[in-house]
């Protein structure tokens, strides 16, 4: 009886961990290689049961080296999953926000106006608004600016002649901290198929941190907004303003 109970507890623990691993890696390229572990374990178990004990060492070696190879090859995926877990599990906003309602409203109006102008002229742009997670790692990859956000400044940064146009502008509170920043690209397969690098970068940063990214397409002039690894395509100015108002604010902690 006790051994049955022990087996059941053992089963539940292993099942729980397997379930967590598969649900975390469900949308990633790791899902396939992990499934291959099942084949390896079944083969190892069957060869043990059939009495090929000499093969045991070989199976163990194969399982461990396979696991190590997967960890090395899929290191970016693992890193993304780790960041998703640590950042996205705390959805609160509030590290950086503008306390004063009036200044916040003016800032959001400015962002929307900048996007409208860039969209009308079909100038590609990528603006990231920092929230709780510090984006210093990405800020360092660009040129530090530290200037109050204004539609004119944003417009001049993204002008094709500007040396800073090919990268992201990162905004903290209502100041442009840096421009020309290099962001990680989205890993999801459907993103790779569908869109260009700018949109993939916009989604990529939101997969790793909780900031908002606003993209203006160079080809169509359409404005999209990405948050937490998802993107809303082709947003009208009014809707964009409403979404930023909801997402970029202080919440009770």
């Amino acid at each position, binding site marked *: 009886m006790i051994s049955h109970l022990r087996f059941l507890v053992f089963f539940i623990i292993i099942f729980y961990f*397997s379930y967590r*691993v*598969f649900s975390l890696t*469900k949308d990633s390229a790791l899902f396939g290689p*992990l499934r291959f572990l*099942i084949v390896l374990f079944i083969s190892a*178990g069957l060869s043990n*049961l059939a009495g090929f004990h000499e093969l045991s060492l070989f199976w163990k070696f194969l399982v461990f080296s396979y696991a190590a190879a997967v960890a090395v090859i899929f290191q970016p995926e693992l890193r993304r999953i780790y960041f998703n877990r640590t950042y996205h599990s705390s959805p609160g906003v509030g590290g950086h926000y503008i306390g004063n309602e009036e200044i916040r409203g003016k800032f959001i109006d400015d962002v929307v106006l900048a996007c409208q102008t860039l969209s009308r002229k079909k100038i590609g742009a990528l603006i990231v608004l920092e929230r709780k997670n510090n984006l210093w790692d990405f800020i360092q990859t660009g040129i530090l600016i530290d200037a109050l956000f204004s539609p004119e400044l944003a417009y001049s940064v993204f002008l094709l002649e500007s040396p800073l146009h090919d990268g992201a502008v990162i905004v903290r509170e209502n100041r442009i901290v840096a421009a020309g920043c290099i962001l990680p690209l989205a890993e999801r397969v459907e993103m790779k198929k569908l869109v260009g690098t700018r949109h993939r970068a916009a989604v990529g940063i939101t997969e790793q941190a909780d900031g908002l990214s606003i993209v203006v397409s160079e080809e169509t002039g359409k404005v999209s907004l990405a948050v937490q690894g998802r993107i809303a395509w082709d947003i009208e100015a009014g809707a964009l303003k409403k979404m930023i108002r909801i997402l970029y604010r202080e919440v009770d902690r």
Partner: protein
Amino acid sequence: MSFLRDWPVALRKRLTAVMRDRQVGLYALLLTGSLLLFLLSEWHR
């Protein structure tokens, strides 16, 4: 002792979530089964 009172509800919710995501549940079950097969065959050698 809300845990003692609420655990059946919590368990049912968790099981419903597992059932909803059948593909993940199925692979988790297969991995568990194969791992157990491997470990038990090692221990009973």
